[in-house]
């Protein structure tokens, strides 16, 4: 990972969950990451619904953003599992094929994709800066968490370079650094049902309930996720458990005030 990064915020966080952007920015500042918003960013053509309808559009849109980072000689850090998979899979695919066609379109706007920038998730970044992070944590988080990585952080494992699709431990590891307890970890990262929200709400909710049921059974006090789509599901479709996004847990453990990072905007109040 380069030292200079472009932050790609996606759509859901800046429009509906700006408080997650706030805590993420505070965490990046505290880690002294040289980060600048990706100029000319658009939606990544999310990989759950929209991409399947027009895969060539997805490839050109993502290649355009990768080319912008490339010309600035920066890598990209995303805050969302969807954006992460979308950009990462495009970058992966374009190593083998599709490059010429994409560059024909990009050429018309004076851009070129050459594969020179890599894509990382915020979780990758904080793990790579473990020492700085550990030294900035001042508050022991006394809370038992259900660890919910979300599907696209580890699948397809051939694309996202995950640690392996079975019992991923990265998110739980970072949670442990803050002193939080782990009440539940998934062997096979489970689905929040968010991808079907609006398409078939009943089915979406029934998938969602399966996942939350496991957390309740295990005695979790809150859910931890690095994905804003999962966050919305957990925060709006049940009342029993508060949810924390990755940067919120870290910001709290850095001693930041809950109100400053917008915890009051959660529907289920974390009480932290």
């Amino acid at each position: 990972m380069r030292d200079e990064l472009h932050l790609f915020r996606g759509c859901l966080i800046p429009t509906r969950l700006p408080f997650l952007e706030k805590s993420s920015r505070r965490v990046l500042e505290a880690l002294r990451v040289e980060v600048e918003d990706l100029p000319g960013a658009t939606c990544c053509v999310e990989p759950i619904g929209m991409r399947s309808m027009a895969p060539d559009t997805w490839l050109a849109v993502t290649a355009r953003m990768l080319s912008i980072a490339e010309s600035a000689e920066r890598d990209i850090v995303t805050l969302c599992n969807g954006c992460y998979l979308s950009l990462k899979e495009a970058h992966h695919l374009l190593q083998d094929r599709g490059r010429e066609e994409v560059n024909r379109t990009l050429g018309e706007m004076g851009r070129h994709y050459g594969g020179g920038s890599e894509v990382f998730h915020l979780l990758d970044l904080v793990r790579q800066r473990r020492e700085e992070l550990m030294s900035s944590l001042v508050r022991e988080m006394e809370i038992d968490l259900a660890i919910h990585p979300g599907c696209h952080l580890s699948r397809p494992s051939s694309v996202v370079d995950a640690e392996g699709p079975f019992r991923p431990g990265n998110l739980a590891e970072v949670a442990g650094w803050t002193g939080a307890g782990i009440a539940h970890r998934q062997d096979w990262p489970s689905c929040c049902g968010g991808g079907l929200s609006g398409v078939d709400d009943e089915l979406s909710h029934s998938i969602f309930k399966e996942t939350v049921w496991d957390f309740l059974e295990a005695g979790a006090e809150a859910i931890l996720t690095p994905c804003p789509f999962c966050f919305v599901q957990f925060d709006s479709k049940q009342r029993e458990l508060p949810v924390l996004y990755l940067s919120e847990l870290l910001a709290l453990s850095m001693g930041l005030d809950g109100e400053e990072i917008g915890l009051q905007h959660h529907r289920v109040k974390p009480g932290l």
Partner: protein
Amino acid sequence: MRTSSFDPELPEELIQEDFAEFLRRCHQCGQCSSVCPSLRNGGIRPREVMERAITGTFELETDRSIWLCTMCNGCSERCEMGVNPAGVINALRRLSAQRGGAPDHLLSEVKLFKETGLAFPRTRLTSKLRGELDLEELEVDADTQDELDLIVKRTSMGRLPVER
């Protein structure tokens, strides 16, 4: 409407896909279905979709189950033969969308994306929250929108039937 079908072009079309290298290796073991959260809750049945896709009996006009996949990618991760059922579902969706078969929810998303560059709307609440949190206004500038328009025009999103 056909009640039983055989569409020899469908498996041929799927076999053209980049992912389809291993398509014919599917031996219907059902591991895809064993991990599918949608199937467990009454949605898509990945093994059956695979069977119909490979044999050319998937009815694009009437079978809506491809839109009941959450794209969790569990099936493709689990498949020991490397067949990539999620890729097959994606390809069937593309063919269905080209024929006007996409769900309204996704069509509104496409419309919003084409018009604003984002998949979620900027509302009054967006500005209010961003202001309160001392974050800059969120903007997709005119040059970016022009570049997006060009990409949409040059690719298949520009040809998707979005109005019914």
